[in-house]
Every structure is written in structure tokens, then in C-alpha cells.
């Protein structure tokens, strides 16, 4: 299967197989008018199989938030058909409206307009807690 190389944009590689659509939805890629390719179950020497997303446009979003979804993801930044940067997203200090607090006693359960904000409380354990009620985020 051939997917054209991109000139200026991003290649999000090493996405855990099956998680590609989650990343696609998280980055709201459906709203872009450029070419976007999702490759599912691509062969990987490291992972066996993986998903890849190619975006043929520079994207102005904080990709570090992807670190919450999957910290082993690799982000490749392409300019003039050359990879100029390659990195793993770090766990973000705060994530907003990516996950919802499931504590029925939390203020977010009754005040629907509140953003669901989680703070990183333990980087070693990838542990996030609700800003309001401090409940641990359910993965």
C-alpha cells in the first residue's frame, strides 16, 4: 500500500495498534481540509503492529497532550520533505476536557458547564487527579 510522502506536516508514528482513530478524534483531524492518512496495523519491528497518522499540513495544537493517550507515540515534524524534529510527547501537566471525572460526588457531575481538568500528580505512575475533587483519573 502506498501513501504519498508529505512535504510539510506531521507523521505521528508508533501509535498503539487500534488507537489511531482515538488520536484522530482527539486532534479533531476531521475538520482539516488537507490530506490526512490513517494507517492501521502497519508492520513494526518494535511493536509488531502499529498505527500511523500522516498530516499534510502544519498543525497548531499542543501535541504534548498526546502523551496522556500514549507516551510512546513518536511525532515527526516534516519541512520541505525533510524530517526536522522527532520527539515523544511528554505527559502534560494539565489535561482539559480529554477525560471526564467519574466521581458522582464531584462538582462537575452537577455543573455541566465546568471544564473537566486533571492535573498530573505522579509522573512515574502516569497518575492524574481531578482538579476539583482530586479523584484519580480512570484510564
Amino acid at each position: 500500500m502506498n501513501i504519498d510522502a508529505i512535504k510539510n506536516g506531521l507523521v505521528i508514528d508508533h501509535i498503539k495498534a487500534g488507537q489511531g482513530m482515538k488520536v484522530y478524534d482527539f486532534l479533531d483531524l476531521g475538520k482539516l481540509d488537507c490530506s490526512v492518512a490513517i494507517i492501521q496495523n502497519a508492520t513494526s519491528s518494535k511493536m509488531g503492529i502499529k498505527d500511523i497518522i500522516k498530516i499534510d499540513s502544519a498543525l497548531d495544537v499542543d501535541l504534548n497532550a498526546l502523551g496522556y493517550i500514549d507516551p510512546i507515540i513518536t511525532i515527526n515534524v516534516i519541512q520541505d520533505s525533510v524530517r526536522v524534529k522527532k520527539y515523544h510527547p511528554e505527559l502534560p501537566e494539565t489535561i482539559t476536557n480529554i477525560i471526564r471525572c467519574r466521581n458522582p460526588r464531584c462538582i462537575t457531575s452537577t455543573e455541566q458547564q465546568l471544564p473537566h481538568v486533571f492535573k498530573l500528580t505522579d509522573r512515574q505512575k502516569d497518575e492524574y487527579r481531578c482538579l476539583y475533587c482530586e479523584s484519580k483519573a480512570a484510564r
Partner: protein
Amino acid sequence: MADLSVAEIDDLIVTSQDIIRSPEKYRDICRYKKLATLFFEPSTRTRLSFEAAMYELGGQVLGFSEASSSSAAKGESVADTIRTVCCYADIIAMRHPKEGAPTVAATHASVPIINGGDGGHNHPTQTLADLLTIKLEKGHFEGLTVGLCGDLKFGRTVHSLVHAMCRYPGVRFVLISPEELKVPSYVKLPLKEGGVPYDQTTDLVSVLPELDVLYMTRVQRERFFNEDDYVRLKDSYILTSEKLTCAKPDLSIMHPLPRVNEISTEIDPDPRACYFRQALNGKYIRMALILKLLEESA
């Protein structure tokens, strides 16, 4: 409580002790200042002690004592209520049944917010009252063996007290509860990380002789989703005069109140029972806290 350092807590205790010694010095110190008490759920001690505290500082009080008498009953958000009340008051004390409501309030407030309890989450001014009581009864925190008994799972005062007391050297905890109401692991985490000694048991009588402080708690009906679980566990520990015969003569028996039946009323005249002194101390420490926050916001 995480908002206060040990030094700040110690300062509040020192101010409280000065208020107790010389109340006349503080009689007019908050003149022309207004405290709003926003109680979205019922309370006796917390609300009245906040109000008494402000009156004894020479200030004024406004507010409501249940959600049904505020615009919350019409669906107003916490944020909008707080923005409105900030137009009328210099400082706000609030209680809300939902966890994290004070955090929302603080985000939208232009005056200091004091959390007077948010669901089963935090009740920091109760913890300050508990610390002042231990200081007044024992003279120090260091080296005390503190027994915590009853509902250690949902008991927010217990969680906060463990967190606050473990910052003092030599403190040892004895955690006494039924299996179903044991302290959650995240509460024990600072004990493990700080090397603070603690024991867990289901037997109150066997550990009573070791204790310098016994902090009793009520099994709270409102924290259970299942009535059957509440009924099964509510009478797990009842402190009686007979059980107390093996306790130290200078034991301090504390309880955040209200009690149901976990401390027999026959113990009330015992000088070791200090739960009503603890309620009084709640007023003094809230006076100190109001003063500190008003000074900082001036």
C-alpha cells in the same frame, strides 16, 4: 490543608492562643468587614462557629444556611453565586455537598474563600480546630500516639488530620476500623513515604492503653449509597466508661461531632472527653483564619 504550610498552621495556633488569652485585643479588629456564610447543606458547628468568630472580631455576617434559600435552588452555578456574593462580602466561608465546589469558587472569587466542608472531600477548618485542640490539651504534637477510630474510609476529618499530623516528628498513628471502612491507600501514602509509623487494627480495646489521643468518628449515613451497608457498620465502635478503664489517665478523647452513639454520653463528664472544648476551639481557630486571610487580602 495543602494550602497551608506547617509554619502557617503554627502561626494560626499561636494567634488562636493569643485570642483565648486576650480576647479584648481582637474585639473590634474586623469592624466594617463582612463575612458571607454560604452553606449549601446543613451544619451546626461549622456555620455557627464561623458566624460567632466574625462577631467576636467585631465584623458582620450575611449568608444562607441551606441551598433551598439561595438561587442555587433555581439552578444558579457556584461560579455565579460566588461572583455575586463577592459584591457584598469581604470574605466567604462556604460548605457544599459536591466535592471541589470551593475550588470552583476560589477560581471566580475576588475575596478569600474558606472551605467549610465539601462533601466527603475536605474539611480543613475542622482539622485546624483538631490541631489547636491537641496543642491545647497536650502542649505539643511531637511523639504522640494518635488513635483514629470508626469510619476511616469516608471520614474526611480523619484524612486531613493524618495529613497534617504526619508532618510533625515522632507521631505514631493507630488506625482502628472495620475492614470495610479502612483508611484508603492514598491517605496512607504520606505515612509510608515519610516513614511515619502506623498500625491498623479492628480492635479498639486492645490498643486503648497505648493512646495519647483517641479521635472517634461517626459512620456517616450520607456517605453511603447503600442503606444496608450503613446499618451493618454504624454500631461498629461504641466508646463506654467500661472500655476507658484501661486507657491512660491523660488520654484526650476527641470527636468532630455530631455524634450519634459512638461515644456514650456517660463519658461526657470525664475530664478526658474534650470534644466540646474542641467545638469551642473551632471558633478560635476560625477567628485566627479570618484575620490572617483578611490581612493578606488587604
